[in-house]
């Protein structure tokens, strides 16, 4: 450490409307992507607008990388245009009377005339061929990519994204997600990403904050948070484990890759493009896609069978379900969702050694 202040975002956000109150206290990492996840009405966009200063509410305290943006106890409120952040709106909000190039220049000119290399960013987002066009002539996905570039060219020290993919259809989402993934990997600044799509969160986030009715339900690194057994079922899809590894080998006849991770290897179907050995991959295994056996099955279609030890058995919020926390021999943790009847029939209890079966086709790449 060189003594520089730890880059971090500290935010105490509160807001009262009729029938709704928001009260959250967040400490977010100063790098990487933090997803604010919640259903509509959970207050996630309000959080973002309070951080931006687009909404003002008393009692808010906000510190971004050592700079105080709002502290009502000391009468500090930095106006929106003096806060160095970028904001990507759900509907892109490109200026219709300006060309794409002029849109991109708008923030750059005002905030950071020479700070960012436009060329690299324009290439990364694949919008070079659009510069002379008007926003009205762009597709939804193109607009969103321009909006992201416009926000970043203003050299923000924090990027706020408000459901940037929510207004797009599935095909457009699939088109823009890879750009966002590449972008998030290269960004040096923290990103706060509001979403109600578990899929986007899985692909982009490093840190996850779950919001419900204006309160924080869970908050922590993505892998830890989604594998928690105590979250209400169905709130964030299903309890899952996240495995990050790289493709160690690839069977092109069956389109199956071997994903090597700290706890061993998983055989998973990798669609086109997966043939690159060494490609880093993040996969998710939902608890409902893991089954347990006491003896290792031999004649089975299941591709992945891991030796694990039961760590805990937790009642699920779904009646008749239990969640079984598992530790593989390499130390990796898994969770299985099974019926309580199966649990009793197998006599599962902490310390018992069992086999975890993971269907290869159920792994979400």
């Amino acid at each position, binding site marked *: 450490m060189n003594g520089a202040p730890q880059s971090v975002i500290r935010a105490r956000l509160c807001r009262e409307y009729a029938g709704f109150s928001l009260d959250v206290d967040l400490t977010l990492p100063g790098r990487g992507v933090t997803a604010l996840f919640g259903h509509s009405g959970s207050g996630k966009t309000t959080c973002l607008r309070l951080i931006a200063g*687009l909404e003002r509410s008393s009692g808010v305290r906000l510190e971004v990388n050592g700079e105080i943006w709002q502290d009502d106890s000391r009468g500090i409120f930095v106006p*929106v*245009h003096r806060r160095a952040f*970028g904001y990507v709106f759900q509907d892109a*909000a*490109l200026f219709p009377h300006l060309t794409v190039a002029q849109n991109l220049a708008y*923030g750059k000119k*005002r905030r950071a005339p020479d700070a960012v290399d436009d060329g690299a960013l324009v290439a990364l987002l694949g919008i070079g061929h659009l510069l002379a066009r008007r926003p009205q002539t762009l597709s939804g996905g193109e607009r969103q990519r321009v909006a992201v570039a416009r926000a970043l060219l203003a050299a923000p020290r924090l990027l706020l994204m408000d459901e940037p993919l929510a207004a797009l259809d599935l095909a457009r989402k699939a088109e823009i997600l890879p750009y966002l993934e590449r972008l998030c990997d290269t960004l040096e600044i923290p990103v706060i990403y509001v979403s109600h799509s578990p899929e986007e969160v899985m692909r982009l986030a490093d840190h996850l904050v779950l919001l419900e009715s204006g309160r924080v339900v869970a908050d922590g690194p993505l892998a830890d948070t989604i594998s928690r057994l105590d979250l209400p079922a169905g709130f964030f899809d299903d309890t899952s484990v996240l495995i990050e590894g790289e493709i160690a080998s690839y069977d092109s006849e069956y389109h199956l890759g071997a994903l090597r991770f700290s706890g061993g290897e998983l055989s998973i179907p990798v669609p086109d493009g997966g043939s690159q050995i060494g490609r880093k991959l993040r996969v998710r295994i939902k608890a409902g896609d893991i089954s347990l056996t006491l003896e290792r099955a031999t004649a089975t279609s299941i591709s992945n069978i891991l030796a694990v030890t039961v760590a805990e058995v937790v009642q699920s919020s779904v009646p008749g379900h239990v969640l079984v926390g598992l530790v593989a021999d390499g130390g990796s943790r898994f969770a299985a969702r099974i019926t309580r009847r199966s649990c009793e029939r197998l006599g599962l209890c902490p310390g018992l050694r069992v086999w975890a079966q993971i269907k290869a086709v159920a792994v979400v790449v």
Partner: protein
Amino acid sequence: MPDDILHITLFTLGVASLGSVLVLAPGAALAWLLARRKWPGKALVETLVALPLVIPPVATGLILLKLFGRRGPIGGFMENVLGVEIVFTWKAVVLATAVMSFPLFVRTARVAFEEVDVRLEHAARTLGAGPWDVFFTITLPLAVRGLVAGGVLAFARALGEFGATIMLAGMIPGETITLALGIYQKVQLGQDDDALVLLSVSIALAFAALWLSECLVKRRMA
């Protein structure tokens, strides 16, 4: 065309232009405040501004006469302190047309501002633009067609102003006679042919102004 008809036409175009130009800046400012801000007394100001549209123009003229006349609170000040006389001069014609055009312009301009997506203004702020910067680079360019259309409408209204003008400016030949007053005067004098010429000129000017306004509004919709 006889000299006095040419003079009346040019004089009318002059006062209507000046009257509607004078309305632009304060009208746009008020329209923006009505469209974008909440403030105490807003409803009252809205009503006051709309009043000239609904009360008889002669009544508006009378109110202006009481305010700007020699013994009126504003007129007295202007004459005694500034040495400017308004009533029964060409300035009274400009004042009357401006006051009558003001509500029309404010209404059109307000709609034009309201049609600008507030999220675009927010986006500009997040990109480092201060309030004035946002107004001049985002709000104004996006509202400009509506504002111009409102200006043309105000101009067309000013061309035909009669009631308030005759009350405040009288009918002084060569000094305060506009097309509308001229038509009335010519008919009174039995010079119907001259009145018809003035009528044709009025129709032509009003037609041109409204047509221009329609074109601008249509382009805005497109």
